[in-house]
């Protein structure tokens, strides 16, 4: 039997209604925090997943060609010149194996694939559709961008003379796996390929235009020889892509664009959403803290005489202080345990209610163990901090005044 624990617990147990009131407040507050966090994290993870399902995290391309001044003037000489941007033709990357090896050696890079891309036309039965040809090594490319979840028809293979085409292109040209289609590049080269499979990227433009070919077939169709137009990279940590892009650019001398740079508006929206969530969490936490503090202040006033008796019989101030701080911690921890359970139940309930037309959840909820641990730790800490003023007031009570009431 220890004083601080015993007295704190007994007084809480004795003040049943107040205790349940305060625990109920913490429970609702923590439930709101857990629910909002789970929904926002789930929504953001889903948006990022969908955005990046058909995009590389970092894309390396040859640097833009710039017009150079023929003569550099001395500092004191002012020159008047109008330097226009040069017309860009499809630039390529040579010595692909060496560049790939250099890229893969950079810490944080998970996979890299060489891509030869260029414009073209697909013809079938007199219908011509503009396409974008992507020549890839399928095994390498799948390490960067998943395709198995996008296969709608046929097989996921790219042997010489085969192609994987987008679902809308297949529909527009009336193509199915096994059918042949004629492809023509901008330079006039022609290649007849067999459709191995039809893919659904979840993005209309890609479904309408993208044609995947084996790397060698695309290089010969587009006239690149042994060269490629870009290196697609997958990184280990998604949000380090921007930093890694700078590293990769330095290592390879190529221009590097991260997915963040390519989707800056989306990131701004996500950041705003996170900040809104943070504000909600802050004010809910503040409300919980004020709730705990106000109930404990009332409790101190009600227990004044008992505190006076305890002080009169020789209880040190610090022990009285510890009793009320512990009470704050207990209600914070208890409320947070109930609150995380309630918040998780609400979030799971949301996924059952909010569903797509096909019955699948609108988006998956992210309920990470860290969320429970951090919520419980935060609520306990808030409980202790909120109890500070009431506890100090209790510890400073003059026993004579307190007993007299």
């Amino acid at each position, binding site marked *: *039997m220890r*004083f601080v624990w015993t007295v704190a617990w*007994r007084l809480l147990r004795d003040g049943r209604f107040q205790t349940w009131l305060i625990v109920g407040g913490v429970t609702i507050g923590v439930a709101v925090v857990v629910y909002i966090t789970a929904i926002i994290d789930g929504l953001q993870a889903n948006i990022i997943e969908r955005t990046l399902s058909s995009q590389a995290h970092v894309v390396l391309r040859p640097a833009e060609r710039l017009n150079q001044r023929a003569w550099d003037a001395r500092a004191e000489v002012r020159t008047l010149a109008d330097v226009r941007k040069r017309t860009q033709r499809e630039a390529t990357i040579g010595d692909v194996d060496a560049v790939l090896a250099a890229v893969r050696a950079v810490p944080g890079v998970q996979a890299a694939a060489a891509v030869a891309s260029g414009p073209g036309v697909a013809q079938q039965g007199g219908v011509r559709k503009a396409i974008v040809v992507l020549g890839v090594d399928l095994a390498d490319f799948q390490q960067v961008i998943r395709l198995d979840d996008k296969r709608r028809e046929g097989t996921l293979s790219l042997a010489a003379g085969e192609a994987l085409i987008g679902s809308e292109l297949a529909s527009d040209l009336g193509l199915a796996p096994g059918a042949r289609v004629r492809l023509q590049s901008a330079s006039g080269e022609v290649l007849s390929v067999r459709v191995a499979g039809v893919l659904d990227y979840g993005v209309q433009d890609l479904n309408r235009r993208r044609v995947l070919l084996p790397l060698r077939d695309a290089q010969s169709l587009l006239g690149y020889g042994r060269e490629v137009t870009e290196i697609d990279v997958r990184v280990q940590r998604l949000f380090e892509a921007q930093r890694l892009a700078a590293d990769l650019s330095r290592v390879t001398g190529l221009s590097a664009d991260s997915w963040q740079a390519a989707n800056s508006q989306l990131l701004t929206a996500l950041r705003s959403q996170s900040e809104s969530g943070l504000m909600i969490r802050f004010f809910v936490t503040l409300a919980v803290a004020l709730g705990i503090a106000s109930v404990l202040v009332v409790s101190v006033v009600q227990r004044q005489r008992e505190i006076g008796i305890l002080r*009169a019989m*020789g*209880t040190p101030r610090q022990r009285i202080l510890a009793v009320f701080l512990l009470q704050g911690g207990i209600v914070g921890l208890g409320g947070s345990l109930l609150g995380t359970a309630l918040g998780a139940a609400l979030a799971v309930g949301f996924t059952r209610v909010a569903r797509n037309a096909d019955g699948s959840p609108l988006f998956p909820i992210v309920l990470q163990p860290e969320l429970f641990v951090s919520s419980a730790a935060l609520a306990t800490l808030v409980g202790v901090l909120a109890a500070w003023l009431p506890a100090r007031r209790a510890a400073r009570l003059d*026993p004579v005044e307190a007993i007299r009431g």
Partner: protein
Amino acid sequence: MADVLRLQGVRKRYGGGASPIVEVLHGIDLTLADGAFAALVGPSGSGKSTLLNLIGLLETPSEGEIWLAGQPAHAATEAQRTLWRNQYLGFIFQFHHLLGAFSAEENVLMPVLAGRGRIHADDRRRARLLLERTGLAAHAHKRPVQLSGGQQQRVAIVRALMNRPRLVLADEPTGNLDSRTAQEVFALLRELNRDEGTAFLIVTHDAGLAARCDRQVSLQDGRLVRDSARVA
């Protein structure tokens, strides 16, 4: 026999600053021997409660010295006064002031728990022994609200003695009881005084009870006007 309490020229003033200064006690000299059984009597407003608060180390004197169990209480820090209250003193109030969230036995153990922070098996044995001696063994696990007024006051008396204090201060311990129960409670105080060897200073308005104490100290207008020990 050693003195458990010695007061020399103790004065207590209140107020100051914006409010006028009022002196409630005007130079009190008093000694109490170990094992004494004394009554402190006097009309309302004579300064009894103030004197009891000073002796109980709940307040500090404006002037004079208070020696408790050989310790200079008048010069003690707040922490020392808290420690000495726990070690040397027991309190009995007019209203029992038991802690409602705890059983009778736990209330009795509270001074040990308050001072040391934890209790041992020996403490439990003593608490049960005291409860048995006062006829409360069967009520040890009851909450104060489940006990009669007399039983509550007996639990409060046992609680005051739990830490083997040198001096018990009792403020109108029978003031809230009917006459029969008051007699029983007084008899219990007397018995514990003899058996435990603890000194008692009992504030009472009841002249009959005061007469049955070994010594009567009378206070009037903040001055000791009569001390039967000195008269004798």
